[in-house]
């Protein structure tokens, strides 16, 4: 799904509206439950100034980056092959759709037992979330490439790697970027859920520890930081996505 290009003014109205909603919610439920927008922002900045906070950021960022790298490389390779080879694509498509819609959290204990409570478990968990949408989008994109492009490639006797690099990827790029955008978000979700259960470091762990301590300020500030991060990267990717699709038409 690709919505129409947003106007800057509308984005400001939206963000303003959400902040207003937040402030009103604060006035309704009181400070035992949530903190108001400005205080949360100030506390988030203070957290970022603390040295003890950074190892958690680095831990989450490292796990996320590794998971994303594997998802992107693996997802593209598998997606390109499945899209190119029609029969395997048809065989695997429903399996992939099924994998996409199962609650993958339930697999986390298994991953913990395999990898141990370490960084690699979070990376693996981020990867199983992120790789599936990248495969599905890439596969669909390659299937929809005009056959004449691929025939031209065959005519030149291109080997699979050159074919992928010079024909498949450029022709399918707009859809691939959409897939990467979805893959990015899901890898982040996977990494964070991984950290919220059975982890001793990282932002997800900070959140869970804060529940135990009833530390609302930290919960709100970390949530704000994560949401701001996810939303900004998604906006950048959306803009690239729109540009590529416009060019393709």
């Amino acid at each position, binding site marked *: 799904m690709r*919505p*129409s290009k*947003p106007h800057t003014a*509308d*984005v400001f*109205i*939206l963000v303003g*509206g*959400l902040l207003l909603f937040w402030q009103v919610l604060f006035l309704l439920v009181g400070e*035992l*439950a*949530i903190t108001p927008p400005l205080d949360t922002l100030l506390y988030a900045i203070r957290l970022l100034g603390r040295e003890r906070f950074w190892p958690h950021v680095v831990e989450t960022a490292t796990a996320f980056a590794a998971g994303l790298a594997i998802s992107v490389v693996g997802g593209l390779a598998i997606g390109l092959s499945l899209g190119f080879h029609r*029969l395997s694509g*048809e*065989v*695997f498509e*429903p*399996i992939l*759709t*099924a994998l*996409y*819609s*199962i*609650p*993958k*959290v*339930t*697999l*986390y*204990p*298994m991953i913990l*037992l*395999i990898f141990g409570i370490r960084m690699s478990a979070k990376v693996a968990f981020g990867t199983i979330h992120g790789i599936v949408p990248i495969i599905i989008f890439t596969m669909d994109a390659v299937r929809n490439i005009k056959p004449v492009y691929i025939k031209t490639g065959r005519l030149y006797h291109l080997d699979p790697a050159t074919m992928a690099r010079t024909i498949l990827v450029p022709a399918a790029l707009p859809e691939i970027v959409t897939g990467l*955008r*979805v893959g*990015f*978000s899901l890898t*982040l*979700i996977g990494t*964070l*859920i991984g950290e*919220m*259960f059975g982890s001793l470091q990282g932002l*997800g762990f900070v*959140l*869970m520890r*804060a*529940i135990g301590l*009833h530390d*609302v300020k930290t*919960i709100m500030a*970390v*949530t704000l930081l*994560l*949401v701001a991060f*996810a*939303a900004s990267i*998604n*906006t950048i990717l*959306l803009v690239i996505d729109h540009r590529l699709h416009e060019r393709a038409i």
Partner: protein
Amino acid sequence: MRLRTNVLRIAVVLGAFLAVELLSRIGAIPRVMMIPPSEMLIALVRLLLSGRMNVHIAITLRNVGIALTSALLLGFVGGVVVHALPRLRRILDPLFASYYSIPIFVFYPLFIVIFGMGSIPLIIMGFLSAVVAMVINTLNGLDRVPRVFRKTAQVFQMTRARAVCLIILPAAAANIFTGIKLAVAYAFIGVIAAEFILSGGGIGYQISFTYYAFDNNTMYALILLILVLVTVINMSLYVWERRLLTRMGRR
């Protein structure tokens, strides 16, 4: 061609299971890590027969049910309202576009703080996961109703209600069905993930409990239960959707 694809697909799935079975039987996968799939199945059958998980299964299904029903109703109504108000829609569009990029599980601690540990935060997580998919797909569906259909309704001087029932809804049905399909999957993911992270009951809770109790047999039986349950539900919707589309002559 179609038959061959189906046979190959079943072969792939069975092959994967057999490979894992073989690897665990010869000890390449240690038992503390994973039990053989056949034993998971036996453990699951025993567990279901013993009935000691019935309470938790009921809790999860009830929470998913409440979350899903409210998400479908409010999502559909929300979609119709937003569709009728283009100005509001332009403002909300960026929210819809970014919604699923936000790891909504980070809000779960917040809901626990506000509502306390119990069913409400779980239902909210399921609802929040599902509702926007329903809104977006209702909007898409209403967008795709060809203008000539609306004009036809005018020519026949249909009342608004009649036009909606006889023309608009059927024309938007395919997309709305996609919305329902996604909402079902997301509601399950939302509730079970939240149960798993922190809760006092439900299948997700039991999976995390048995993990900490080193009770691999029960844990893998429950994991299998969730995967089978959700896959069967999703696949039935998928097959139903195919039939619906064929009947409507779209494919």
